[in-house]
């Protein structure tokens, strides 16, 4: 195997990892603030994918441009779900929370199946299979674009959490819900914002992956698992950790496929996952709970 093949694998791994990171960051924000593991995360992504599909086929809006519409729409959708359902189970037994989010996911995917049938929807843009070359390494145009958008969103998010009052309030809620409440932070509102953010990030990931992947009602389940692995790997609740986790998974999958074999890549991913958990049980960036 030549070094250019390896380089190619690393670069496409990083690019794909960027989108994985976006899914993971959404999940980690929700967990951080509410201590609820959102098993409907992949299904939220699926909703974002269908949204993108219809914006493209009905209104002719380019998938990457449509992110501007997907983000607020998914934010509102997530906020409503939080207010109506998730809010009621904050602080209750974990298994109840899991059941609720799994149930919400099932309702979403099966409603999508009822409405759009189980047919695969394929979004064909003029650049779906375009690429450009840098030093003999071909870089997928849609993937590069989505990586760029992911990077911008992640930076904005970082700024939001570090610099704005609301962002700091959310962080405070994540650190200690009761203490935050005592300090006069409206934690219920923060939860709605956090879930809204998580949903819009999942939806955005769906939108970004649409031009190169395909859309069907059950598409979410595979990504829920991936998001979960990424989040745990990076440390639950850590945004930097989830970003790192996403990129690591992307690169391991891709390099694993060229060095060993493509059907072994999942084995590799989960071996690394277990290894990290053995050495650092709280995840790469996680603070061990005290």
């Amino acid at each position, binding site marked *: 195997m030549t070094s250019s093949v390896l380089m190619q694998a690393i670069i496409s791994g990083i690019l794909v990892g960027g989108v994985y990171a976006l899914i993971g960051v959404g999940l980690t924000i929700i967990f951080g603030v509410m201590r609820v593991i959102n098993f409907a995360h992949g299904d939220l992504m699926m909703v974002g994918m269908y949204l993108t599909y219809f914006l493209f086929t009905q209104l002719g809006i380019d998938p990457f441009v449509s992110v501007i519409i997907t983000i607020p729409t998914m934010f509102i959708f997530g906020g409503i779900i939080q207010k109506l359902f998730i809010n009621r189970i904050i602080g209750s037994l974990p298994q109840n929370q899991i059941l609720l989010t799994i149930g919400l996911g099932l309702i979403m995917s099966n409603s999508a199946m009822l409405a759009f049938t*189980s047919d695969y929807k394929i979004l064909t843009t003029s650049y779906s299979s375009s690429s450009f070359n840098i030093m003999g390494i071909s870089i997928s145009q849609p993937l590069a674009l989505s990586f760029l958008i992911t990077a911008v969103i992640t930076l904005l998010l970082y700024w939001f959490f570090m610099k704005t009052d609301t962002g700091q309030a959310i962080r405070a809620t994540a650190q200690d819900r009761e203490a935050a409440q005592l300090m006069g932070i409206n934690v219920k509102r923060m939860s709605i914002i956090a879930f809204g953010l998580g949903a819009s990030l999942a939806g955005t990931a769906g939108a970004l992956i649409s031009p190169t992947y395909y859309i069907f009602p059950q598409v979410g389940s595979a990504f829920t698992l991936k998001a979960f692995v990424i989040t745990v790997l990076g440390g639950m609740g850590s945004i930097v950790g989830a970003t790192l986790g996403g990129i690591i998974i992307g690169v391991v*999958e891709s390099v694993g496929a060229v060095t060993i074999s493509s059907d072994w890549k999942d084995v590799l991913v989960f071996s690394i996952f277990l290894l990290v958990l053995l050495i650092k049980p709280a995840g790469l960036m996680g603070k061990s709970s005290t």
Partner: protein
Amino acid sequence: MFKQIAVVATVLALTIPGVSQASRVKLGFINTITGAEAPIGENLTNGAMMAVEDLKKKGIEVELVKEDDTGKPEKALSAFEKLATRDNVAGVVGPYTSACANAVASQADKYKVPQLIPAAAKEEITQKGFKYVFRLNAPADVYSSVIMDAIMTQGKPQTIAYVYANTDFGISTVKTAQSYAAKLGIREVANEKYQKGAPDFRSTLSKIKSLNPDLIFMVSYEVDAITLMRQSKEIGVSPKAFLGAGAGFTTAQFLAQKEISDHVFSSTQWTDDVNWPGAADFGKRYKAKFGKEPTYHAACAYEALRIMGETAAANAGDRDKTRAGLKNGSWKGIMGDVKFVEYEKFTNQNRHEMLVQQIQAGKYETVFPPKYATKKAIYPFVRK
């Protein structure tokens, strides 16, 4: 209760032959109606429904009990048990996928219910000597041999790379392809199994690109075929020919992706431009009814249900007689000549002649065998 009715019906059927319900027959149809394989399953359902209509025109009223296996063998098994014991069907057509058909085949002899498999390719299904299991379509070995035969008429490829889904169909097809390629003296340079539905094949494809094989042989369902070809273009993989073994490479959706699907070869059980009786007419009627091109799955399901329906009706729904009817009969229809025979390791296997098609200018054209060809093959592959 059901048993009593069945007994009464059997007694009636035996005592008054001829007057018995020769024109009414109850059949089971197991298919993937939901789940990941549902888009291909839909073609089978459509084909089967057309067969029911056509049988009605011939005076055979088919009561079709449809069961969904969601692509899972255990669901297919329970569906079959229900059909055999509760619905008391005369015979079963299906299931679609190799894994499901294989699971059901192991039970057909136990329940003594004739099973006719329309489109599952895994070889071993008809190699275990089951008496009640029949298969209409050609098994996996033909998917690979026919397409390599077609390529050998075009040139002398030296090397081959395999990229395939790690499903029953993928693995068994590639296994036969490997031994056939070895016989032809084509050297294997890569063997890449992948997880069905994977979003990223780029690293695998760039590895293959660096090995520069003459042929790339792919076995993929549905949209994986599109993802693979999209990323092949992206990476710039350019062999002398892309070979697709049926399934995902023969769908209307794949055809619609003009940018990436042009000049891809695929083996298929059926096309609407061969001169098998009624094939063209079936294609036309199907398009009028469902608004899209029929895939070979539709034709396979149609013909399987027609054969099962006619045979079961002629034998008044008696399972053993229907089995004998399938065993001894021969048919001529949209899939050409059909006869269930023993050869090599196979039993009750129709020696169906497969075709090779190539996408040329946004259309599937039959290019092999020569007697069915509508266009000349374009070889080697050139990326525009």
